[in-house]
């Protein structure tokens, strides 16, 4: 599903407002009421987190909390693929087991799709990196959030990649690793 981006009418002074113009404003409100959002999580855990930087493996998200615009697919669970173009805000958390022996870090990468004027297959990032040092009781959980700095076109995708000072794995619990996005602007 691709939502139709709103078109705000220009209504000059002295003009007679048409029904179409008012309905365009209404469509913009409807868009905002139903704007694209997704939150997916690593409900399985046990994914390897290696020591190579930059990491090349994408964290897989086996479950979705919600996905209002068809960005997540169970057949391609390692990314969120943009359906409706725009600027997006992003959130993510990487969670490793309490026994994690070394620090972990993570960041978001973008892969451009066919709809991007720069062409498909370009990898951009990382943006919004984060880091945590493990502790025996708390484990290592690192979160991050921010506005994705590049305009996203339909077909572009975002993926979470993690790395560690020594090999470890993600863990699944009541608050697993997750990736979320929210459309914020045309």
């Amino acid at each position, binding site marked *: 599903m691709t939502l139709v981006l709103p078109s705000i009418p220009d209504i000059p002074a002295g003009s007679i407002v048409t029904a179409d113009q008012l309905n365009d404003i*209404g469509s913009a409100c409807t868009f905002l009421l139903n704007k694209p959002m997704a939150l997916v999580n690593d409900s399985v855990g046990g994914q390897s987190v290696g020591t190579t930087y930059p990491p090349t493996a994408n964290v897989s998200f086996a479950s979705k909390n919600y996905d209002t615009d068809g960005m997540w697919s169970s057949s391609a669970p390692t990314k969120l693929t943009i359906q409706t173009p725009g600027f997006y805000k992003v959130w993510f958390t990487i969670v490793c087991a309490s026994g994690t022996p070394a620090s972990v870090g993570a960041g978001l990468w973008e892969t451009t799709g066919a709809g991007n004027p720069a062409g498909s297959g370009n990898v951009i990032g990382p943006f919004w990196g984060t880091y945590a040092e493990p*502790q025996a009781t*708390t484990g290592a959980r690192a979160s991050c959030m921010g506005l994705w700095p590049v305009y996203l076109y339909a077909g572009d995708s975002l993926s979470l990649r993690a790395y560690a000072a020594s090999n470890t794995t993600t863990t699944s619990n009541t*608050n697993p690793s*997750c990736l979320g996005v929210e459309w914020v602007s045309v």
Partner: protein
Amino acid sequence: MVAIPTTIPTFADGDTSLANLEALASAVQFFSSCDVRPMWHFYKTATESLAAATWTTVSYNFVAADSDGVYVPSGTLLGAAQIVTQGYYVTEACAGILAGGAVAGFGTRFLAIAGSSNPNHALASGIVYGQTAGLAPDTANQDAQLCFGSLCPWVLYPGDTIQAQVFCTGAVSTSTASNTSYVKGRFAANFTGYWQRYGT
């Protein structure tokens, strides 16, 4: 409660309905103004003792903004937000601990708890989200702060609550950010949340 404009009016040629026009104006106001759309911003201006190895709700005690009346002003949930308007929400917070304690591990998280109006989750059931945790910095000599934020995994309903919580492996006090130096207390302890989107 804020009236969510779930039904956006449509107009026909020659439409003279003032009610439709007002409904459209209300919808635009809802989406363009945080004075109307639910949003809160709480601060903490007093320190607070934290027991060791216990998740403690941060008692944010100063309300800078609260367009929907969600602030919980007293009781065990002091400083939490009790949802008034249904929808998807985002929460962001910053919490810190004062220097001087023997703290090995330090974490923060959000805890959402279902109220009686939530049709999707049992009363008093909860979900943790946005958790950050790990080895604390040199807390013997400097304050430590964590900023955390996330989409709430649930659609929230009136009566549901969201708490920002702190965990420390040792007993210590929360910091309030006096901003007296670059190194110490440069983050203000605060808790922000906002309505994102309609949902069921």
